[in-house]
């Protein structure tokens, strides 16, 4: 019951899905112990950050039916907020708070403006306007090099507790899978984990509130929603603002983890595409999809080159295949992943599992 309330009664509705989600969440919760090593922890942390980011985007796309390409802009604002203030004010907690609050304010204003001005135009035009605004913002960020470090970006330090040099214990913890250094990175990881869990639950509540239901109705038929007395512009703008704030927070987390930020890291169109793909893999309009999609995609992206290196070794000597299977052509396979996931997961992993469950249920009832 408590769990159900925590999840806003929006349960996985499929036994396999529930099992999968439990496994993934436990995996992330104990990642530092289960998968020791710098690279593995990096992947886990990125998964967490992307869960937060994708969840915020799904509010727009899956629930409100708005295609926005400006989402990375807010992500970037969050990351730059921390980066700029930590560079300017030094490695203090205050700097982090100032950075996060400043970034949230800027995102709030921008998303409000974008929402009020352009959510009136047709969906395609909105998508294109946001695409243009995002690319303008990217240009701006690389031009204002005095503040943002330009294309070089900003490298900065964090408060002692979060920096790699800080040791919780002198000795590494000897886990069953290897040594786990209990340092500042370890603490940062759990800071991310807790933040993302909270953000996820809050978002789950928002989409299952009466407000969230209105968004879904607007997605279906905005004209009708107006006629019922819902002011579509207000709802869309609010959704835009909420999504932007969550993306900004996700950006702050990214900056905390990387202790670096630059235009390519948080603002590039590539990240926008990654988000879109994760939403599609996981399933649009269901927040659980964000968890599954992020894990699948980021693990694939991070280990694709290793996989290809291995595969390329297997097929050595054959014509053409090695040219395609070199790690250097990993993007080719990533592109293929785009195509295949659209082909095979029209409703995403979550949708697919739920269909199965629903199918089984109807079969049993007859």
């Amino acid at each position, binding site marked *: 019951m408590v769990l159900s309330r925590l999840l806003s009664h929006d349960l996985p509705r499929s036994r396999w899905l529930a099992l999968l989600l439990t496994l993934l969440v436990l995996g992330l919760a104990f990642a530092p112990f289960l998968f020791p090593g710098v690279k593995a922890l990096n992947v886990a942390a990125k998964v967490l950050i992307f869960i937060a980011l994708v969840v915020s985007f799904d509010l727009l796309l899956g629930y409100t039916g708005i295609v926005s390409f400006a989402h990375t802009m807010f992500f970037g604002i969050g990351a730059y907020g921390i980066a700029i203030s930590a560079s300017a004010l030094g490695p203090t907690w205050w700097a982090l708070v100032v950075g996060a609050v400043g970034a949230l304010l800027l995102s709030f204003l921008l998303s409000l403006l974008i929402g009020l001005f352009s959510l009136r135009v047709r969906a395609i035009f909105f998508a294109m306007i946001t695409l243009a605004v995002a690319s303008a913002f990217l240009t701006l960020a690389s031009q204002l090099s005095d503040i943002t470090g330009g294309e070089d970006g900003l490298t900065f330090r964090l408060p002692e507790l979060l920096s790699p040099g800080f040791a919780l214990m002198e000795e590494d913890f000897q886990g069953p899978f290897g040594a786990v250094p209990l340092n500042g990175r370890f603490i940062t990881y759990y800071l991310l984990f807790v933040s993302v869990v909270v953000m996820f639950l809050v978002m789950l509540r928002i989409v299952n509130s009466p407000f969230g239901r209105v968004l879904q109705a607007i997605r279906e038929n905005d004209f009708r929603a107006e006629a019922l007395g819902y002011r579509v512009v207000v709802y869309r703008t609010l959704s835009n603002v909420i999504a932007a704030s969550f993306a900004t927070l996700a950006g702050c987390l990214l900056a905390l983890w990387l202790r670096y930020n630059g235009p390519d890291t948080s603002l590039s169109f590539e990240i926008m595409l990654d988000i879109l793909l994760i939403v599609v893999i996981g399933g649009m309009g269901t927040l659980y999809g964000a968890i599954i999609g992020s894990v699948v995609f980021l693990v694939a992206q991070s280990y694709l080159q290793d996989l290809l290196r291995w595969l390329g070794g297997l097929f050595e000597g054959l014509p053409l295949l090695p040219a395609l299977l070199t790690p250097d052509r990993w993007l080719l396979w990533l*592109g293929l992943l785009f195509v295949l996931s659209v082909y095979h997961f029209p409703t995403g992993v979550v949708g697919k599992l739920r269909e199965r469950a629903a199918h089984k249920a109807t079969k049993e009832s007859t």
Partner: protein
Amino acid sequence: MRDFDWKPVALVPLLAALALPAVGSGSTWLTLTVAGLAMGLIVFIIASGLTLVFGLMDVLNFGHGVFIALGAFVAVSVFGGLNAYAIADSFWLNLVALVPAMLAAMVVAGAVGLVFERVIVRPVYGQHLKQILITMGGMIIGEELIKVVWGPGQLALPLPETLRGSFLLGDASIEKYRLLAMAVGLAVFAAMVWTLNRTKVGLLIRAGVQDREMVESLGYRIRRLFVGVFVAGSALAGLGGVMWGLYQQTVLPQMGAQVNVLIFIVIIIGGLGSTLGALVGALLVGLMANYTGFLMPKVALFSNIALMVAILLWRPQGVYPVANR
């Protein structure tokens, strides 16, 4: 045409006229204007295919750029084979290299477009989001395959001998290649206007996007038509790639991705699907880039976007709205 809407077309000379006092020198203005118009027409060529695919067929093809790059690389290969003609000091001999390069680029891009439509686009007609993703995937794959075939680096695509250099008009210089580009651009424009306005093709595409079932119920094989249009759009992109590659004189596997936002802006300004609109949009973009580049280089970076926003504030559906989407 009784009630033809002249205002958007008039914007082009208006912009040029406004720029004259700002630029000051007449010869500089002339150089900039011709350069801007020519660049506009080249942009129009690369965007023209997208007018069909995105504007009329309503396929948000983020992979359009790959056909541009493909066309350019094919041209590099053809030029390599016909190098003797390309470096000959005779316009006609140069054409012997240039025309096959253009044709080959169009044929290859069109053929790849055929595959692209079948494999990538067909399952997602009418679903914008999936179109974005899957065509983006197609774009990545295409770009990587270009790298496999032609290598990851830049290749040179030098202009044929007689197209180098400029004509001088007093102190103004008008590059020869830009004149050729203008001619090709206008030819593409005329061909498109004729096909879309004098035949039912344009109508059918627009109707098919709104209600496929109804068009089929009226007895038209919409699928075949869509394939045809997509192939035509890709072939035009291939031609655009040749023109763009010659204009830059280098080709890069990423060149398609680099122009993506630019051509989207042109199509949006044009009103999603209007050929004339795309032409006006492209010319405005070309002129704007040159004038602001001269007057305020810092602003030039944002000139396209500012232009688009301004146009959309004036006409929220673009200058010549085709569809009420």
